[in-house]
């Protein structure tokens, strides 16, 4: 064991990480007060790409606001659109055909895998291994091609409609998805063999960046960050929505709370998402994907509504305050990365800077979602 670190506040200097830095994966700045290689204090500065999505909501109708949702988290945009349509459907009491809900769940889970694949590649690249990124992007490309064929876009989807979908999936999509599931299972085995059990990766991650349950509670961390700290919280399970109760899947939870635990949670989540997609394709009912009649202009009854869904990075919540008009009186987006990143300031104190960047990668940041 090495000697405990004694920090000397009078011998510190300021180090600026970002706003343009490869390890921050976007425009994020961390002002670190350093004592040599060790972090004495850190202050995260965000807001560089703040676009005021919440004000935009007040100037648009509910339908016009739909494209904004996929511009928050550009890696798992589908889940955000899902949360929004669920919120409006709940408040306006719009029935959704079963087939549409199944297709929503399938596409959301595919998008979750593609998001985790980007994280996997970029995270391992942060730690110095370049080639996994290439493999991960190759697999992700299969998903993007499949989703592009149905939704019409590769990243910023606007596929869901209030009460249904933009269009139905065809046989090509179903066959292609089944082929992809096979391929992805093989790739995951390879990733585990090449990366998970790699001793360099383990040494960089095990015991680094511990996040306690108390820290999660005080900062409101959700998603893989909470599940890596032994908190069995997943909105899909705790607060079932859509057709998720129909599926048999596990929520991976690890108790260590270190970066490796978060790594393992996400790797296993990809397997579970594959299970959901497979079951969804097996159970996919026939029928229409849009309701027979739905109101032309959506107006929500006056009141205040909250809806949460499990996005790629944690619990994404939408609060809509309506005054009965055709655009929201107030719309609040609760983004998971915002809370997950906030705990970084406190958790990274006393850490080596190289470890802190590994820790930051394990939080899986998407900056546009944080800045909104």
């Amino acid at each position, binding site marked *: 064991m090495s000697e405990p670190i004694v920090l000397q506040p009078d011998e510190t200097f300021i180090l600026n990480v970002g706003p343009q830095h490869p390890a921050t994966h976007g425009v994020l700045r961390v002002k670190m007060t350093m004592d040599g290689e060790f972090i004495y204090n850190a202050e995260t500065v965000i807001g560089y790409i703040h676009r005021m999505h919440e004000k935009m909501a007040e100037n648009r109708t509910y339908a016009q606001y739909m494209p904004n949702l996929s511009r928050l988290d550009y890696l798992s945009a589908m889940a955000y659109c899902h949360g929004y349509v669920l919120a409006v459907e709940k408040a306006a009491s719009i029935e959704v055909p079963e087939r549409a809900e199944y297709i929503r769940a399938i596409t959301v889970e595919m998008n979750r895998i593609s998001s985790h694949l980007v994280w996997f590649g970029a995270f391992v690249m942060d730690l110095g291994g370049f080639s996994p990124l290439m493999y991960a992007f190759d697999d992700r490309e299969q998903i993007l091609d499949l989703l592009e064929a149905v939704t019409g876009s590769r990243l910023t989807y606007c596929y869901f409609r209030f009460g249904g979908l933009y269009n139905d999936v065809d046989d090509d999509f179903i066959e292609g998805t089944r082929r992809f599931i096979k391929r992805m299972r093989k790739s995951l085995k390879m990733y585990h063999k090449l990366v998970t059990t790699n001793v360099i990766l383990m040494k960089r991650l095990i015991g680094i960046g511990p996040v306690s349950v108390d820290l999660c509670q005080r900062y409101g961390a959700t998603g893989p960050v909470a599940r890596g700290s032994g908190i069995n919280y997943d909105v899909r399970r705790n607060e079932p929505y859509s057709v998720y109760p129909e599926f048999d899947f596990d929520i991976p939870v690890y108790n260590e709370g270190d970066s490796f635990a978060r790594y393992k949670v996400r790797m296993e989540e990809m397997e579970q998402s594959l299970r959901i997609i497979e079951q969804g394709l097996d159970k996919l009912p026939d029928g229409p994907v849009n309701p027979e009649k739905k109101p032309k202009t959506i107006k929500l009854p006056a*009141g205040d509504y909250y809806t949460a869904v499990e996005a790629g990075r944690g619990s994404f919540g939408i*609060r809509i305050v309506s005054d009965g008009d055709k655009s929201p009186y*107030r719309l609040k987006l609760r983004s998971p990365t915002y809370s997950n990143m906030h705990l970084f300031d406190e958790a990274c104190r006393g850490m080596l800077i190289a470890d802190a960047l590994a820790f930051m990668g394990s939080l899986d940041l998407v900056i546009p979602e944080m800045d909104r």
Partner: protein
Amino acid sequence: MIIETVKDKLRDLFPAAAEPAVTEHQAEKPETAEAEIGVFDCSYAKRGYHLDVRLAPDQLLSAVGILFDHGFFIESITGVDWIKDGQLEAVYDFCRYDFDLCRIVVRTRTPRANPILPTITGIYSGASWHERETHDFFGIVFEGHPHLIPLLLPEDADFHPLLKDFKA
């Protein structure tokens, strides 16, 4: 059930309000009506939360303290500008990590002309960014906040874009 325990504890904050719980109190009344004070049951299926706690600013810290002690985590803090009432409302969302599902919304109102609320960063450290954001967007001053500088807006911003009378 945690909801019963918390409800009783929260009701203790309102000595005078011994009236029975009103279910779905908002459904009939328009949202802009004069804010009443108390703990209200809500239909989860319709609203997405179980309890709606409306309180005066000086009760905020004790209510939030009760929620912290019962293992709630903070989801978000935000504001709503009720310009017709001349009031700003701060909305605090809380939820739980376990399967005893309970979502609680705490709201409090402050005059629009001089919006001051106590900070809850002493209880939930994660409230810091949420309060800074609410300060950016609505100009609500969270008294006692250790670092109330703009978070999402530029550092020299002197406007509050989510106020209803904001003109770009």
